[in-house]
């Protein structure tokens, strides 16, 4: 079925390690929580019908493709387009709905790794697309052509960032070494991203010609000033999650942890004291603490970045 052409960014279960997957879910749930609250603020009662129908739209629009060369076709992921017309937080919610449905209904993308799929294809694409779109428009100007150029660059980069993030996650899980995975993912998606960029710019061109007020709505959505902070925060959180000595070099949680128990005990001491009685009967302590430590570390970094972003958002909403 043409709808089911699996996108290279839909990571199935098994390809990411347990610790990496859990961190992904934690980050994704935070992002979803903020997105739900901010879009409710933005849209009120219209939130659910509008977001639901636009999620159906993204799902259907992913089937609209065009021939590129030698049997390949360009198609849409949609995160950047949704962010440009609805704002980054609404786009996060829309893309999350699409990815959850694809995972649950078509097994397109795994369940345990779904957190990362939501981040890669929803949050990263939406925020990159939006931040770049706004930035390019500010640099180039407000004209019609600059808007198309901004949409083009934003959409292309959004796919690229999603692909690079996926390569990092695969590397952190020990599934594919970074020196092979990163160039492969980045170059393949540099091409796939062109399809995304062409369709996104085409869609924006049509909206600009027929209903320009729709585009203005996206430009005043909440999170427009917090977008770059969010992006930086997420990137830092991602880097911390991946380069933390616990998650990296840790292809298969258990063996690695067992081997380096001594090292872990030492490095975990301060975190461990926060939760002295922490233990799970079915999981050996080291695994639980590994995951916990990575989660807490990520949360702290994310929290700081989010707090910075949040103050901007608040100022902005009061300003309106």
């Amino acid at each position, binding site marked *: 079925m043409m*709808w089911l052409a*699996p996108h*290279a960014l*839909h*990571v*199935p*279960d*098994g*390809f990411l390690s*347990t610790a990496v997957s859990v961190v992904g879910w934690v980050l994704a*749930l935070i992002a979803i929580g903020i997105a*739900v609250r901010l*879009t409710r603020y933005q849209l*009120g*009662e219209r*939130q*659910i*019908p509008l977001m639901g*129908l*636009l*999620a*159906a*739209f993204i*799902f*259907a629009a992913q089937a*609209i493709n*065009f*021939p590129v060369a030698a049997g390949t076709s*360009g198609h*849409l992921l949609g995160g950047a*387009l949704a962010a440009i*017309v609805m704002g980054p937080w609404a786009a996060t*919610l*829309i893309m999350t709905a699409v990815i*959850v449905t694809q*995972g*649950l209904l*078509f*097994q397109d993308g*795994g*369940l*345990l790794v779904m957190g990362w799929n939501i981040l890669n294809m929803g949050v990263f694409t939406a925020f990159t697309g939006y931040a770049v779109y706004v930035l390019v428009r500010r640099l180039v100007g407000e004209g019609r052509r600059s808007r198309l150029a901004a949409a083009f660059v934003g959409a292309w980069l959004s796919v690229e960032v999603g692909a690079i993030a996926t390569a990092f996650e695969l590397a952190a899980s*020990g*599934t*594919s070494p970074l020196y*092979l995975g990163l160039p492969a993912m980045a170059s393949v998606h540099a091409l796939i991203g062109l*399809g995304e960029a*062409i369709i*996104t710019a*085409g*869609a924006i*061109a*049509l*909206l600009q010609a*027929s209903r320009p007020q*729709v585009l203005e709505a996206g430009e005043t959505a909440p999170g427009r000033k917090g977008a770059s902070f969010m992006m930086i925060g997420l990137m830092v959180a991602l880097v911390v999650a991946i380069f933390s000595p616990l998650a990296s070099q840790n292809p*298969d*949680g*258990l063996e690695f942890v067992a081997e380096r128990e001594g090292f872990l005990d030492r490095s975990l001491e301060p975190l461990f004291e926060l939760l002295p009685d922490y233990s799970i009967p*079915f999981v050996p302590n080291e695994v639980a603490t590994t995951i916990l430590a990575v989660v807490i570390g990520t949360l702290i970094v994310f929290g700081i970045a989010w707090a910075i972003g949040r103050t901007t958002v608040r100022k902005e909403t009061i300003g309106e």
Partner: protein
Amino acid sequence: MHYDLSDQYHHRSSPIHHLDPRVKVVVTFFYILALSLTPEGAWWIFGFFLVILLSTVWLADLDLTFTIKRSFIVLPFVLAAVALPFTTPGSSLLKIPGLGWTVTEPGMIRFLSILARSWQAVQAAILLTATTRFPDLLWALSALRFPKPLVSTIGFMYRYLFIVADEALRMIRARTARSAQVTGRARPSIRWHGRVAGSMVGSLFLRTLARSERVYAAMIARGYDGHMRSLIRFRMTNIDWIASVLTVLLLGTPLIVSLR
């Protein structure tokens, strides 16, 4: 031609179909988590988990090859791990003549473990979808404290998915009808093709936006107050509890044994 998803759910009146959807969601998630925690190369655990899965397929009154047939959707992604047997250091298993690449034993074990995890996890997810109606699945997610607005949004998306997808299909058919190809003449440029596709996406967006306004107005007229209500109710029965405890024991025991 209509976009149809009805083949995802397979109606039977089996004990698995009658389980509380919350139990099925939690057990599926636990199964995938257990696979993820299974040490590399612990083939007997992977085998045991596969037996559990296939017996559940059998209990669900489905064809034994049902989940296997659909599990090949993960195949394209195997590319992401295909370098592992060559890049992992360890004792060499065999050399590929001509290229000078060596397949190492730990690399092969890791690669096959990833395949086993991914293959069995996707089968568990397929089984969940095949035995649970999608609205019941969403109800289970919200009962398990998933953010409610998100679950309602997904429910709404599912409700209008078919209509919007049909709309997209009609546009694609219209484009095909107008895109006659004359042999011997140059094909239009990629940019032109892309602009057409982009315009289609743009007008699909406008139509969806207009539809959402009509739907919202109709909802308001019927007393919508910002909250979605569902008539679905499930209560945990003894069988549900037994099934949950049994699967946790069946999945947890080999993991604990293997770690000793």
